[in-house]
């Protein structure tokens, strides 16, 4: 018999790995998961979701776009189908084709002032993947 001592050590090793995995998954999950919310939900819930990690998408309001190339800061608003809006600030580069009516998807947090600070910003381009026929648009 190879000794139950060895067996215990082996089991301990397995438990450490599994326990470590469970621990890392649980803590990692709570710190890096973010909830998808709609603009309406964001306005509704207000204070209760301030500071939480959120994902939101909406259509870009063209007139609201202010790009400060010196500070590398982009201010704009997004709206939903009912016309409700949320102001957004993004400390990063203005994406290509950042135009009125385009769908923008962002990760970030809602501040107590009601401004959504985006950590990442993506413009969904309908022609990007399965290409659709679009009007020709040439040149810069």
């Amino acid at each position, binding site marked *: 018999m190879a000794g139950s001592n060895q067996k215990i050590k082996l089991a301990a090793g397995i438990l450490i790995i599994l326990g470590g995995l469970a621990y890392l998954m649980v803590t990692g999950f709570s710190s890096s998961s973010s909830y998808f919310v709609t603009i309406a939900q964001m306005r509704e819930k207000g204070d209760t979701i301030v500071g939480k990690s959120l994902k939101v998408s909406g259509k870009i309001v063209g007139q609201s776009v202010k790009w400060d190339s*010196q500070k590398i800061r982009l201010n704009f608003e997004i709206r939903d189908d009912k016309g409700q809006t949320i102001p957004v600030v993004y400390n990063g580069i203005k994406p290509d084709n950042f135009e009125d009516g385009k769908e923008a998807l962002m990760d970030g947090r809602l501040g107590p002032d009601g401004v959504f600070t985006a950590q990442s910003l993506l413009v969904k381009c309908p022609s990007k993947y399965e290409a659709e026929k679009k009007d020709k648009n040439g040149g810069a």
Partner: protein
Amino acid sequence: MADIGYISLVLGIFVALYALAAAILGIRNRDNRLLGSARGAVVALAFLTTVASVALFYLFWVSDFSVRYVAENSSRGLPALYKISAFWAGQPGSLLLWEWFLAFFTAGVAFTSRREAKDMVPYATVVMLMVNLFFLVILSFFSNPFARLFPAAYDGNGLNPLLQNPGMIIHPITLYVGYVGFTVPYAFAIAALILNRSDDAWIKLTRRWTLFTWLFLSIGIIYGAQWAYVELGWGGYWAWDPVENASLLPWLTGTAFFHSVMIQEKRGMLKLWNINLIIATFALSIFGTLLTRSGVLASVHAFGDSRIGSLFIGFLAVIIVVSLALVYRRLDTLRSENKFQSYLSRESSFLFNNLLLVGIAFAVFWGTVFPLISEAVRGVKVTVGPPFFNQITIPFGIALMLLIGVCPLIAWRKSSVDNLRVNFLYPFVTSVVFMVAAYLLGIKHILSLVAFATVVFVATTILLEVFRGVRVRRKMTGENPLVALVRLTTRNRRRYGGYLVHLAMVIMVIGFTGMGAFQQEVTRSVKPGETITIGSYTLTYPGLYEQPQGENTAVYTDLAVTKDGKPLGILRPEKVYHPNHEEPSTEVAIKGGLKEDLFVILAAWDKGGIPATFKILLNPLVAWIWLGEYVLIIGTLFAFWPERSRVRQMQYKPAPAPEFAQGGR
């Protein structure tokens, strides 16, 4: 041509059905003629899928825009090379590529002539055929690459600019060979289950297939990362995107699989585990295809929504249920012949390696599918960001690296502490010295210090092991060191090829650590004449220019780069506007070496290019990842390459004497 292609696919269904019927009847009646006929049908199937694929290539080549798929993914002005690679730019073509490979692999299985495989081959062929049938049905009725477009388009939409990169020619092919290839070991595993053969014959038979598949999957993944780095223009190479994860999952379980099968071969243990691992790996390959090709998840590379998602899920469910039912029926013959004798043994270190790999796979899987599950169950869409994945893969990855160093040097059954001391004293001391030196030189980032120290430890153990082998051989034979090294390694290809792959992992981890911990980034807007400084580099912006590039228009600049005041040349980052795509593609400019890459993105500009905004990254050690890829390829091929004399022996004579087999050469 489109009709020929489509008819081939539909005929393929009938041929596959016939082959299935012939094989099943042949097995039942022990009728070799029927089995032979099934083999013939398998060849016919490979031929038909080839006809269909050649037809699609042809349609792309002549720009036949009366075919919807061609019109959607190509255009007249597309360079010839990309007219070919547009074949797999969308869902139907990719699935056809899958099926094409699969049909050839099926033929490979049907014609396996090894004696010990004889009874398993018909069953394995049946399993392969069923998978063929699934893909053929999808291609014929749900995702037909030959569907017509009426009226025909005058010109096509063009290939997605992001896919216009040489890497995108290789990446999908290699990845698909990787995905498809796991069908083979899976089919033999199922054959072994049905026949109730609990020995390791199915593992030995498929060892080469598995290695081959694994190699392609590895190349596919790394090439994908390289493509993302060069082409997507955000400065990184891996974003834990669902589709990236989908390719990593079978790689992780597949890697676990071909480690743990060694325990079954040597010690008759872990049989149940191995069977389950290969089932999981195959299921994950199908799952990967599902994620990539059916648009279940919104992702960078996935294609639009389609009905085939639910078909794939159904197929996946069938695979899992049937496989597990078979395993359950054979539970009693899947018992281990031996027990773990010590926590310090080769077996146990393999066990830990498997736990770590499968643990990572589990976490990655969970992080990938959780958004789907939570939306389905609770109606809340939750996503999990990269920190979740990093938090698990980094510590588990470091632990895995440690095992890579430790494992090959621990004896089977039971290892002694003395044995450990002899083997690990130098590597341990070297890595500690390295860690202290690195700390004193100013690397204060603890996690990367640990990672680098581990890497040094593993590299020293491997080199030391090779060195010892050479020394022993020289003592016995008196050969010069180089000859001794060549003979030693070529006669133990599996072992030394494995070490080389381990070394490749070490090299890649150097790159991962450098990128993970020491990346620097500067985003600035500059007017013509102004400069940007990052690290020891200074870049001077002269202003924006515009020029036509074929059918496209490029906006670019020529940044003069100096390092420590010495001129390094010009970097030309661009944005390219394509006539058929609204969004321009960002072409980054990279100046790199083993130490670091200077990575420049022309991000945006105000009117007239005054000012222009640049995002500039200093990516340390990233070239090591690509370097590691080549070492990995060499190492795997080295292990894969038959030991010549031995293979011949196996084919012509039963069981050669081992000494004899190793002679020759």
